[in-house]
């Protein structure tokens, strides 16, 4: 990608962040946003900017960055343009953990933790199933195992919800639809850590992913330890997916959609595809969260529904080009 495109991508993200802070029940001008960030605005504006809007926008950006980067790396390592972070059983596992926590009457701080644990448990199970099936770093077997584990988790959720009362079902559903509404500086900080570590690992593996994308046998002949690199991508991808799911629930389509967008801009090597997907993913989720807030006030639409709605026309257009 050219430097001009990188700048454009970064500027779009900055604009989305500013717009995300401006828009809400109390609209703020860009000037107030800037002074609020610097701490020179009226105390109430400072509070709205710093304690309400900024954490929410940053959380949305981190969710998008994590899902975008994880999707880009997974698509490369599995050589499959339909791969995405949730496909490793992450979404089902996270939802199962969260639903069980809700059903057991757990309060707010415990539910994301349960979701995180469920996601990591599901990924571990996926990798164990793949290994038991004999796939030595074989991406197809890992993806199939992920589908199996995800299906099992979904079945378990349905069983758990069948006998639950309405408030539990509602809480679980809200989780499964995704939202950045519960953002706080605590959740932003912990997610920032996961996202930074996860993306750093993926960038270190980026060159190996370039080679792995040529095929496993070719990559082995070119000096890539196929099983090890694949495992690194799965673990880092799972960390990113689990961290984002714990912070904002399930935000579908981002990990699938964003890498396609970035490749369309001409990014070819995975170092630029992963970095580009982190930036573009952040922009997309910040915008989607903004739409979720203003589309149907005073109610908020689920974030996951917005990202899916944005994804559908895009993939329809791609489909037409393929056919």
């Amino acid at each position, binding site marked *: 990608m050219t430097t001009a495109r990188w700048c454009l991508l970064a500027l779009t993200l900055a604009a989305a962040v500013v717009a995300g802070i401006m828009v809400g029940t109390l609209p703020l001008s860009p000037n107030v946003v800037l002074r609020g960030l610097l701490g020179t605005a009226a105390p109430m504006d400072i509070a709205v900017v710093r304690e309400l809007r900024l954490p929410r926008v940053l959380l949305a950006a981190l969710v998008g960055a994590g899902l975008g980067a994880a999707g880009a790396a997974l698509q490369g390592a599995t050589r499959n343009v339909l791969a995405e972070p949730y496909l490793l059983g992450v979404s089902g596992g996270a939802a199962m953990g969260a639903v069980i926590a809700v059903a057991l009457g757990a309060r707010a701080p415990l539910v994301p933790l349960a979701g995180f644990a469920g996601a990591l448990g599901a990924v571990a199970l996926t990798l164990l199933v793949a290994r038991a099936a*004999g796939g030595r770093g074989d991406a197809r077997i890992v993806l199939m195992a992920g589908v199996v584990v995800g299906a099992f988790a979904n079945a378990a959720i349905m069983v758990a919800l069948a006998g639950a009362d309405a408030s539990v079902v509602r809480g679980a559903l809200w989780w499964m639809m995704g939202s950045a509404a519960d953002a706080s500086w605590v959740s932003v900080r912990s997610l920032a850590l996961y996202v930074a570590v996860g993306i750093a690992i993926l960038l270190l593996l980026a060159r190996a992913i*370039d080679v792995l*994308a040529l*095929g496993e046998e070719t990559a082995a*002949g*070119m000096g890539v*330890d196929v099983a090890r690199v694949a495992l690194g991508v799965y673990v880092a991808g799972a960390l990113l997916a689990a961290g984002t799911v714990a912070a904002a629930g399930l935000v579908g389509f981002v990990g699938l959609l964003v890498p396609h967008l970035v490749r369309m801009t001409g990014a*070819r090597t995975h170092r630029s595809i992963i970095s580009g997907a982190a930036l573009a993913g952040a922009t997309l989720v910040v915008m989607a969260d903004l739409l979720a807030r203003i589309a149907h006030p005073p109610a908020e639409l689920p974030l996951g529904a917005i990202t899916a709605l944005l994804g559908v026309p895009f993939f329809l257009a791609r489909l037409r080009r393929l056919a």
Partner: protein
Amino acid sequence: MISYHAVTVRYPHRARAALDDVSLSALRGQITAVVGPNGSGKSTLVRALVGRVALDRGAIRIDDVSVLHSTRRAMATRVAVVTQREEPAFPLVVRQYIALGRYPHLGLWRGHAPGDTAAVDAAIALTQTSLLVKRTITELSGGEWQRVRLARAIAQGGEAIVLDEPTTFLDVGHEMAVFELLSRLARDGRAVLLVSHQLNLVARFADRMILLHDGRVAAAGTPGEVMQGSILERVYDWPLVVTRDPAIGAPTLVPLRARPRV
């Protein structure tokens, strides 16, 4: 350079071993060709070399070091491999693709040094792919793609190159160009280990031939020693005669039509 010592490989749930006590070696400065019918174990030789199948018994050594005692990366700096099939999932630009051959030489963050760029340029010159470098690998014809893959392997460098059926899908001209290139690489001192179906071409270019049959070595030696009508007829299970090609007198196989049943 590359030597297989009594290598046995078994795939799970198969009664017969894919490779059964196979020993062979590929020397520097020579083309060593492995031939044999479909399913005789040729491709398994390559898969075992890059560690995609585990050895049941025996050892594969690069000079005197077992491939099990060396990292994939260290091995790749010495031996380049062109596998039988390669279907890239994403459209790289040809030059980027050839430059990926330098992967085993690069550090975690270090970019391409002048030496890497020089190796890529030399590989492009040797394979005459300079007109293709700006194209995308998914837009190349079969012959162009095969030349570009060779360029990638040559850019990888090292003292040996292993190729699995490098001329499948190529027309006569492109096929000859690939064999001439391999011959040049051998003259420059590399060990060339070639898996091929093209018995007649191999007989003209190779220094040594190894004929595999059902995972075992059925014959090994110079092309003249291996290209014997009686051996080939038994291994390929088809009537044939071996004659001499009119140009350089290399042994040439001519398969016969099936005999009409009386």
